[in-house]
């Protein structure tokens, strides 16, 4: 292609690109998917209601206004066990600032009898929920354990961390983000 023709092609490409930016602008806000529940960053956290190990019922949407960490775990999962002490530590540090943790045990794929001894052995003080039917595992499309969902005060997932163990620094940076 000769130079003048090439320059015209470049100019047309740039003008078309410029027009496309405006033509494809998203004025309805559909690209911010906060209204649809899905287990992904930017979406509304799927709601659930489960019983704790002490028999109380906890519903995620009732915690709207608080920053929440939903941690999916099992007693047979070594990284889940390894991160519990760090989670307990940050829970104690931040709970008075409007932060809470829902540690959902994947009871359907765990030994229900092993949960309470583990909780007592570790001295965990945050709510431990039992997902006996697999409802939360399904809603959160669970692929790996542990899986952690950092949820903002408005109920939208701010970040998903798959795998572990999570370090204290990771927990603190993410918790401070969702408390803002």
């Amino acid at each position: 292609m000769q130079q003048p023709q090439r320059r015209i092609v470049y100019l047309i490409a740039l003008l078309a690109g410029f027009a496309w930016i405006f033509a494809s602008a998203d004025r309805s806000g559909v690209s911010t998917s906060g209204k649809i529940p899905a287990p992904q960053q930017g979406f509304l956290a799927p709601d659930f209601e489960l019983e704790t190990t002490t028999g109380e019922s906890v519903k995620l949407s009732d915690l709207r206004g608080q920053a929440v960490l939903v941690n999916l775990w099992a007693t047979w999962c070594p990284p889940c066990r390894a991160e519990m002490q760090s989670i307990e530590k940050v829970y104690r540090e931040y709970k008075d600032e409007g932060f809470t943790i829902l540690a959902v045990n994947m009871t359907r794929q765990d030994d229900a009898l092993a949960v309470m001894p583990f909780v007592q052995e570790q001295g965990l003080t945050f709510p431990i929920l039992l997902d006996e039917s697999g409802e939360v595992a399904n809603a959160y499309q669970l692929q790996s354990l542990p899986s952690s969902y950092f949820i903002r005060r408005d109920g939208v997932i701010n970040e998903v961390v798959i795998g572990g163990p999570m370090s204290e620094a990771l927990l603190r940076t993410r918790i401070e983000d969702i408390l803002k």
Partner: protein
Amino acid sequence: MITLFRSLFAPPRHLILLVAALWIGLALAEKRSERQGVSKEALNNLIYYSLFGYILGGRLLYALSNFSIFVQSPRSLFSLNLDLFDPLAALAVAFLVGLVYGSRQKLAFWHTLDALTPFFAILAIGLSLSHLAAGTAFGSPTNLPWGIEMWNAARHPAQLYELLAALLIFGWIWFRKADSPPGAAFLTFTALTAAARLFLEAFRGDSILVFGGLRLAQILAWIALAAALFASESLRRVAKAN
């Protein structure tokens, strides 16, 4: 098929795809490096030093920007958590390390970038596959028959669009004529990648919006496209004058 792929490479296994792309990209770049007058060894070292800078820089700068948190738990500096990382700072450090190594070894700037182009093109393919596996960079909702079910809606298969574009760009780069002026391969790759992003970003469901709905990635891609075309013209003019 997509479901099987996504369950096979569900996070954190999606990173395997990036590592594989890194390895294949390096092998292909080495294969073509002699054509650009850059030795395989120099290219290897450049990539390894830059990678080292990427990893170290990303973690250290992240720790610096969250200094008060890392002071409370300094051992977290050595944590295996990949999320304790600043990817943009990492890229800047990798670029600086590459620049310093290249100038110390007196590597010709445009020839080296041309030699690295297959590496970048394969990385783009690996990135789109890892996006598909992790469900990130997802599309906006659609009623079109080729929409895929993702995050509780039928969506544009934005990751597949991205993969197709990356494959076509790689093909264009790999099978193009070898007698083009220095910098042409890299600038063609940059222009095509920017043009693809400019077009395909419109189908994404996770765009960062600015100025009342404009997509930030499209604005940046347009600037990159304009810069690549301008640089390409300048290099042609210089080559012609010589």
